[in-house]
């Protein structure tokens, strides 16, 4: 129903607002005192809440980093859990300020929806999970399988492309919520569950017997996941981009939330990052110590990754998400 609400909201905004360019999101955010952050409905490691209602995950950390940069307080964030169907409408209608919800950067989404992708915080790829007792070892053996997936995702299209281009038959069973997909797969409605590989590892925890299932080695698509903002507000776009770049640069320079106090002075690159030199914060429209706040309160990219993804029960390795200097492809423009 939320879908309908936000769609109707979008329609009425579009119909009645004299001007709806959504300029100056920063002013709005500063006025209300918090960032409204669109997240998933519970994807361990990316955006998930514990029994006390606290959100955590690498996607959540982007929003916390932005709050740290703007308010100097990483807790000044309110979260809106969204299904994959609802997410873009919620952002377009202004219900949320930033969408940080394991969202794949594609040409259509970037160009036709009035949205901008502000970088990639996780390089992912789509994979398949099956029951071990099926005896399937790779995706090419899946012809004729029933595939459970979520509506309104790139996953739905990739799986169609993959089976079609390999001349294999399949039946798609598409649900609205990821929990419904997992439940249906668990009860045997489908042979295969497909989503981004990180998601497969994360959802496997929710299965009745996770050890009876395995993730196939095949990766059938590129899924660069990143935060999204509305098109036409360059200042807000910049803040989102640089909140992420700050975390990546900090990791590259070896600055962590633990050692940041002892790092001041010395290396000019470090001084620029910590706001002791230059006017980067001012240019962004936030405080000079924006990046120092992010690192001290949220941590650098590596810390965020290790805290959320490299721990039990996910145990996701850095892989392509390692820094470029360590053989990965995470690379941030320099702060200078």
């Amino acid at each position, binding site marked *: 129903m939320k879908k309908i609400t936000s*769609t109707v909201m*979008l329609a009425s905004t579009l119909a009645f607002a004299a001007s709806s360019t959504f300029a100056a999101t920063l002013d709005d955010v500063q006025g209300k005192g918090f960032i409204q952050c669109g997240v998933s409905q519970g994807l361990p490691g990316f955006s998930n809440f514990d029994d006390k209602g606290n959100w955590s995950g690498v996607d959540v950390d982007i929003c916390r980093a932005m709050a740290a940069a703007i308010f100097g307080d990483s807790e000044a964030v309110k979260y809106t859990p969204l299904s994959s169907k609802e997410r873009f409408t919620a952002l377009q209608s202004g219900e949320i300020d930033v969408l940080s919800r394991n969202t794949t950067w594609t040409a259509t989404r970037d160009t*036709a929806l009035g949205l901008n992708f502000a970088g990639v915080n996780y390089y992912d790829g789509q994979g398949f999970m099956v029951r071990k007792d099926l005896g399937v070892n790779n995706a090419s053996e899946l012809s004729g399988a*029933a595939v459970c997936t979520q509506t309104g995702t790139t996953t*739905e299209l990739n799986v169609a*492309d993959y089976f079609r281009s390999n001349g294999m038959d399949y039946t798609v069973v*598409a649900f609205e919520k990821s929990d419904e997909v997992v439940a249906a797969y668990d009860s045997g409605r489908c042979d295969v569950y497909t989503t981004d590989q990180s998601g497969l590892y994360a959802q496997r925890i929710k299965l009745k017997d996770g050890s009876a299932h395995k993730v196939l080695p095949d990766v059938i698509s590129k899924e660069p996941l990143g935060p999204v903002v509305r098109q036409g507000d360059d200042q807000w776009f910049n803040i989102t981009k640089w909140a992420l770049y700050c975390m990546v640069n900090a990791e590259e320079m070896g600055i962590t939330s633990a050692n940041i106090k002892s790092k001041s002075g010395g290396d000019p690159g470090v001084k620029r990052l910590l706001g002791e030199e230059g006017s980067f914060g001012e240019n962004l429209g936030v405080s000079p110590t924006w990046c120092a706040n992010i690192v001290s309160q949220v941590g650098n990219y590596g810390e965020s990754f290790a805290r959320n993804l490299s721990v039990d029960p996910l145990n996701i390795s850095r892989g392509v998400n390692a820094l470029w200097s360590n053989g990965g492809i995470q690379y941030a423009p320099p702060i200078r």
Partner: protein
Amino acid sequence: MNKEESAGPPPSTTKPWNDPAVRSIFFQAVLLVTVVTFGMYIFGNTAANLEKQGIATGFGFLDTTAGFGIITHLIEYNESSSYGRAFFVGLINTLLMAFTGIVAATIIGVVIGISRLSKNWLVSRLAMVYVETFRNIPLLLQIFFWYAAILRPLPSPKNSINPIDGLFLNNRGLYLPSSIPEDGFTLVIIALVIAIVGVVIMTKWAHKRQDATGQQFHTFYASLGLIIGLPFLAMVVTGFPLSWEMPVLKGFNFVGGTSITPEFIALWVSLSIYTASFIAEIVRAGIQAVDHGQSEAAHALGVKSAPTLRLVILPQALRVIIPPLASQYLNLTKNSSLATAIAYPDLVSVFTGTVLNQTGQAVEIISITMAVYLSISLGISMFMNWYNAKMALVER
């Protein structure tokens, strides 16, 4: 007097702005202009704002390739079909659900409604428990319940339940053999058409004869015999020109035959059972609205219970039943949009779900969907109004 009559009515002395007719036209014109201007303003403003936000507009997307699969499609559809085609697949799935749901809900509802009035204590209590249980639980919960109830206990395809040859039941659905007509099958269809025409003519003749002589004719059994017998005869003559395609387990799933998905069954069962509980109450109310004297009079004339219900009570009860029944049919149709929760690909799930997300054209897609639901509802409404007019008490 004569002079006045020849001059016609005296010229009106009312000023135009005091004339009720002129005033009503004026105000209606003002209202019309306001509504049209408002509509044009909204339309123009929406277009301008979409443009300003850089969101694509227009209906061109309907011709682009959809690129996703749909599990249930009654018309030809594959991943390379267009979004427009996907729209029709969703629409037909919605109509299928609405139609089968309405038929089932009506049958169950009428049976339960009449049972509630039964003199048998057990039957009437059971009917009451049915009504109070199913109309007081939210529909979405019932859908999830039936979906789980169907999915959980059923075995995997490899261990399918196979009660009779060619019929398989598992957690992927119900698989049945599908019939493939061969040469000579047209004769069977022709026989069926002849049988139907024969039944219509016979019914008219039976009515005429009863009007003239008072003698009754067993129209029902004769019709049944005609409709089953004649095509069967044709089958025998042509040597059963039907072959069956059996579902076969191949790889992960069954291939061939006809299949009904668990999503369809779960949604159909829950919609029918839920709506039937309301229809049962409507039927009961309708029957109780008929004056008790009517059945007493019929009994006094020696008419038995069953014909009393069929010929005296129900025709009068229908006048009360039809208008609220139409609302229930509309409810069922609109409730079928809850399909999206359990992966039945109805219009909302396919079109305002997947298509909206792939294209992002919310304004166009939501407008089309609203227009479609409005048209379906108005269609059902028109049919029920026509039926209501036909059934209304004709005063003599």
